[in-house]
């Protein structure tokens, strides 16, 4: 398998609350060039799982392997795009993209490469701009270009469009699919949005919470571009929604401290 998670578990040591097990016994296999979405309610451990693949967190138990090699720490073979803007404000757009290339390429080569990917995300014009001059959508485009510029084997995306408004999100969806088709990367994509997961991915992994676990794994074999009004899309959305409802209610009840029970 290309990316293989075996019996993975994660427990945080919290000074105040003691040990907290986010999930355990997660098994997952992902093929080369697959676009896989991780979907689930808040707190089920999606980000934690992604961080472990990135090598930013260590698994408490189990193994994670990329091309049969154990993942031990973060490295440029796995590019990551975060929800919060993580561009460096002291660098201009192009220097942000060449940041990971400094150690391996000459300045000229790095810039050529950066320009290539900036063109891919339609930001050639903004090479010399600084972060604060860009809208949120443009910043995420740069972050995608930066991750791609390292030529990683896997692209990890943690709710990359979560902070954007709906219209911008739609546009970036289309761009991301185009880039994915062009670069043939494997993508592991975390999202809250059922719609987004179904629109984009080959596979939707649905996670549940308390404890975190995988509750379903759907193959989405609907040809792209997928229309919201497509019957197969709607059917799948409904399926996932029903699966998640119970999970969402768990979270909600906790938030309202069981008030719903007696006020209804």
């Amino acid at each position, binding site marked *: 398998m290309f990316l293989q998670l075996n019996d993975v578990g994660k427990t945080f040591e919290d000074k105040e609350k003691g040990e907290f097990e986010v999930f355990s016994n997660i098994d997952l296999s992902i093929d080369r060039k697959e676009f896989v979405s991780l979907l689930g309610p808040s707190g089920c451990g999606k980000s934690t799982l992604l961080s472990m693949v990135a090598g930013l967190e260590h698994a408490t138990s189990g193994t994670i392997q990329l091309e049969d090699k154990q993942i031990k720490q*973060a490295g440029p073979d796995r590019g990551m795009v975060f929800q919060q803007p993580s561009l460096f404000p002291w660098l201009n757009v192009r220097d942000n993209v060449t940041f990971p290339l400094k150690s391996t390429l000459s300045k000229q080569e790095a810039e050529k490469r950066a320009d290539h990917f900036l063109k891919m995300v339609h930001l050639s014009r903004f090479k010399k701009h600084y972060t604060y001059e860009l809208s949120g959508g443009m910043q995420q485009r740069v972050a995608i270009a930066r991750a791609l510029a390292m030529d990683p084997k896997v692209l990890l995306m943690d709710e990359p469009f979560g902070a954007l408004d709906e219209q911008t999100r739609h546009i970036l969806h289309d761009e991301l699919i185009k880039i994915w088709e062009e670069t043939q990367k494997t993508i592991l994509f975390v999202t809250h949005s059922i719609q987004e997961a179904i629109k984009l991915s080959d596979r939707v992994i649905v996670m549940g919470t308390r404890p975190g676990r995988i509750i379903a794994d759907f193959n989405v074999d609907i040809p792209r571009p997928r229309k919201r009004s497509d019957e197969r899309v709607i059917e799948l959305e409904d399926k996932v929604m029903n699966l998640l409802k119970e999970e969402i209610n768990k979270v909600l009840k906790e938030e309202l401290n069981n008030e719903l029970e007696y006020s209804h």
Partner: protein
Amino acid sequence: MNLNILIKRILFLVAVVGIWQLIFSAGVLEEIIFPSPLSVWEALYNGFTTGDFLGALGASFRHLFIGLAMAIAFGTVIGVILGKSKQADETAGMYLIAMQSIPSIVWVPLAIMLFGFSEFAVIFVVVLGGTFVMALNVRTAIQSVPPQFIRAARTMGTRGISSFFRVEIPSSVPYFMTGLRLAWAFSWRALMAGELLSNGPGLGYSLAYAQDYARMDQVVAIIVIIGVIGAVVDQFVFSKLEKNVRNRWGLS
């Protein structure tokens, strides 16, 4: 700043000087206690043409630059140590705050006792005035590097010492600038305290000297110089720098 505002400000200044002149003309206060605007202007003019004020200013700036440079260097080293090591911070951090809350004028007697009446005593006080506030801000700077940035750098294969120089340092620049501005402000105050109680040369000493000889016109003239320098350096150098950096770093 447009012309309109400039005019308003000048008018305000004129009004203040006018009131001053009025009080003076009313003669309720002796001239030796309350000089006229004109005599202050003359004191300023004479002070600059005879070169007295320029000499004092030169000496003051020499003390300030040496002291501030040392304060920045020490403050940065202490701040980085406390910012990177939780152990060190828990142990010594509190004492840093205590040191910072000692008015620098209080160090003057100690400095004179330890170092005599050399300019070094003044510089010592300036260094103490700036070091702690610099250290506190550098500590905050290091502790405020968004973990997001460090994580992002790690996913790009940048960690350890390389991450410190390529990510943590540049990311700290805005707090560092705040530290600079405050270090300047406190060092400037410390400088005046040190010079006022020391043996010259320097602007603070000139002030004390003018006071000894009951030259209120010179006293007021020197206060005006100190105010103008303080305001100009603060507004046109440090605050501006800090604002630009914060803006670029997307912090305001």
